[in-house]
């Protein structure tokens, strides 16, 4: 159970990052955001240690049960933040990422969902399919968090409320840009992962619960991307839909994973 300890420590790190991130938002000290980034990076390393150890133990990418899937889901969210934060000079997004990651990990650690699921060797197609789908969710999560930051800043500008957060958050133009770029990347990665699903050999009935759910998520984001490209929606409505889409994923993800029939795969090798 040493791997649980890694995840527990990582979760504590995310809690500390969330607290510090909120302080950084209020303090208006630019350096404070760098500390948020470093705290999250530290927690991410512990998180990675958990996934590595678990992967070694079970001989698969650690997404064989809901506990591991949630941990991988939150890990991909942090990984995206660690890429997007420095690339767009958006360390401030850590203040929004850390609380969400903490809550996902807390849920995973505090519910009895770590049930061993002895699976045969699954093959690279299936592992890549699942990994890309979860990474896509992580990227879409950061797009949603950038949208939350945009909506807060937009609200402050509209209501003429110029508090500490107004000065700490980036300008709405940059938040729009990040939100849109990350949204497109997230959709592309998720689509790639979903498309790989068609090439996976399996026996028994199709897992329609998961297929329909994935189709709904894919269609929701596809419509959002199309109207975004067509310039039909205001920035505010785009941001609201991005947040709504991700809330839908968060609220249904665990349920779908619990309800869906376990994939039955042929033995390989």
């Amino acid at each position, binding site marked *: 159970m040493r791997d649980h300890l890694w995840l527990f420590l990582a979760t504590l790190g995310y809690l500390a990052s969330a607290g510090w991130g909120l302080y950084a938002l209020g303090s*208006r000290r630019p350096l404070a955001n760098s500390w948020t980034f470093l705290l999250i990076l530290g927690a991410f390393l512990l998180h990675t240690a958990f996934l590595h150890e678990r992967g070694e133990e079970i001989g698969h990418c650690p997404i064989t049960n809901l506990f591991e899937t949630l941990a991988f889901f939150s890990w991909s969210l942090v990984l995206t933040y660690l890429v997007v934060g420095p690339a767009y000079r958006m360390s401030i997004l850590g203040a929004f990422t850390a609380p969400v990651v903490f809550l996902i990990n807390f849920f995973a650690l505090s519910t009895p969902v770590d049930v061993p699921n002895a699976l045969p060797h699954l093959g690279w197609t299936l592992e890549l399919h699942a990994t890309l789908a979860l990474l896509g969710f992580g990227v879409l999560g950061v797009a949603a968090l950038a949208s939350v930051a945009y909506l807060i800043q937009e609200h402050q*500008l509209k209501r*003429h409320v*110029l508090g500490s957060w107004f000065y700490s958050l980036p*300008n*709405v*133009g940059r938040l729009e840009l990040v939100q849109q770029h990350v949204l497109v990347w997230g959709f592309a990665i998720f689509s790639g992962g979903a498309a790989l699903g068609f090439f996976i050999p399996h026996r028994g009935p199709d897992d329609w619960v998961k297929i329909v759910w994935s189709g709904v998520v894919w269609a929701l984001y596809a419509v959002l991307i199309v109207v975004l490209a067509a310039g039909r929606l205001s920035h505010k409505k785009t941001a609201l839909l991005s947040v709504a889409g991700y809330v839908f994923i968060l609220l249904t993800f665990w349920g779908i994973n619990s309800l869906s029939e376990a994939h039955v795969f042929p033995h390989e090798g």
Partner: protein
Amino acid sequence: MISTLDQVICGGLTFEKTAVELREKVAFRASQLPAALVEMKRELGLHEAVLVSTCNRVEYFGATSGPTQAAEAWPAFLRRFHNIAEDFAAPSFQLRGEPCVEHLFSVASGLKSMVVGETEILGQLKDAYDIARSEGQTGKWLNRLFQSSFAAAKSVRSRTAITRGSVSVGSVAVELAEKIFGDLRGCRVMVIGAGETSERTARALLSHGLPSILVANRTHERAAALAQELGGTAVRWEDWEARAVEVDIMISSTSAPHYVLTAEKLEGLVRQRGRRPLFLIDLAVPRDFEPAINLLDDVYLYDIDDLQSIAQGHLRSRQTEIVRSVEILKPHVERYLHWASRQGEPGFANRMQA
């Protein structure tokens, strides 16, 4: 016999006691400072001297064994140098020792500025000090004093919110525009109505790199005159709505008794503009832009009351930071006083030089 520390003095005129009509008569241009320093040092009996001349203050800093002589000679020096008749003895002040140190540290930190927390004064002090030092008019007392004041000001600026938030309508408009668009260099602005406040606001925006400006006014000649002054293009009154599609920021200050732009009219304009945000600044009373405009997505509307209330809020925040700033300055003042008190000790000066 005066104490070691009381050798450090300062004095002069500030906006608090001297009206601008008088201050402008005794202001020193940068080119006059080298000659003025030499004469002031001689006439006031100073061993070291720095002369600070800004729009809000004309002050001397010095090291001397005769502070009373300096106080008495200062008004005469101003009269003689500027060849004027006014007597500046009454509004002039002089501080010696610790109050002088506290004064300079407070001035450098912007605590004694007309607009509390403004940062321009620090640059002006640095310039004045650099001129005096390069002219060989400073020594150990003033070198240490000014360098300590710069460090103290930096500490106040980084540890308090004294410099934060814009405190004029123009700078608030710039701050808001930067929070909407980020870099303003790609934004275009239109001024509707050639009023004085809109001109000042447009100038503030232009100073942040906006590439072009359109000016529309009922009297086209006034629009043309203002456009020329701002380096922009005049637009005929009947064309401004069509040209508004091109711009990102609109500043309005017409004297129209009704709304110049309604939400209904703007909705069509917003559709033509695509998803680009629009920042509307309404400086007119009665207002030119219908308030319901602010309900439209991607449109940000601010009227004169909004901008003034933001500026006043910032000013109030700055004033609440004064007490904290004074606390931050205390150890800096004490360090200087401690150093100054040791100047009389036998062998200390040699150890400092070693």
